[in-house]
């Protein structure tokens, strides 16, 4: 079981985390940043996150600020 925290203020909508998460738990959000780009959100209803931190390591902007396992 794991958990991630996303700081949407840092997110630049590159979506590298979306394609990196091995469980597909990060997806495009309906919300946008101030430039109008769609942000990402962590969607883990079934507690699938394993806390591998690959998303945080991939994110170029450290928008995934915390990962727990």
């Amino acid at each position: 079981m794991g958990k991630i925290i996303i700081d949407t203020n840092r997110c630049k909508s590159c979506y590298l985390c979306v394609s990196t998460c091995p469980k597909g738990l990060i997806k495009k959000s309906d919300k946008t940043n101030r430039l109008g780009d769609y942000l990402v959100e962590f969607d883990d209803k079934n507690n699938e996150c394993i806390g591998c931190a690959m998303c945080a390591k991939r994110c170029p902007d450290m928008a995934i600020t915390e990962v727990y396992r």
Partner: protein
Amino acid sequence: MQQVFSIPKSMKKDFRYTFCPGCDHGVAIRLVAELLDEMNLREKAICSTSIGCSVFLYDFLDVDCVEAPHGRACASATGVKRARPDKFAFTYQGDGDFASIGLAESMHTALRGECVSAICINNTTYGMTGGQLGPTTIMGQITTTSPYGRNREYYGYPIRIAEQIALCDGTAYSARVALDTVPHINQAKQALKKAFEVQVQGLGFGFVEILSSCPTNWHMTPQEAHERVRNEMVPVFPLGVYKDVTTEKGV
């Protein structure tokens, strides 16, 4: 639950990267910051910054920084290290800075075996000025100053930096890594650690060339850009350790 990832302490509080979306610079700087934390180097680190997309480094890393003119970071770091041999001197440069305008300074710093660590981000173009042909632009690549693609007649050939630096007797460590996948990011961190260690151990020049994407100037999505790193750059710039005096791996 245990925290397995946090923002490194060597990053400035409330830093805000000025890079384009998907740019690998952010990852490289994070790796540097993590190592400064893990190796307990932050309080004795003095960074010689460079010109290009990396110019705002002093706004991101929470270490002492001195600005070097374009290409002169290795000379500046030489001065820092000679003046304060007990400090940790490192540079963070782009390929244009390190291998074009600053090639003499970079090469001679390696030849002298200065105990400094140098990091070179190779994205095959001049990013800050909008994607012109650089020393690492690969054959056939279209840039704003090679609109018909790089060819021998007009532009000559790209430089393989890690191999060249490995040829210098004063080099203690030279490697090329990439940031296109998470396993590669992990390897990159190991290489950077080694380049830092050889300085701390006083063995000589530590160098890492990092293959990095430039989605904006390559006109690609960040995902496509990483595929280009894999499919087009790595065949020209093979990943690997080209010199490591701690394992007696020469060229």
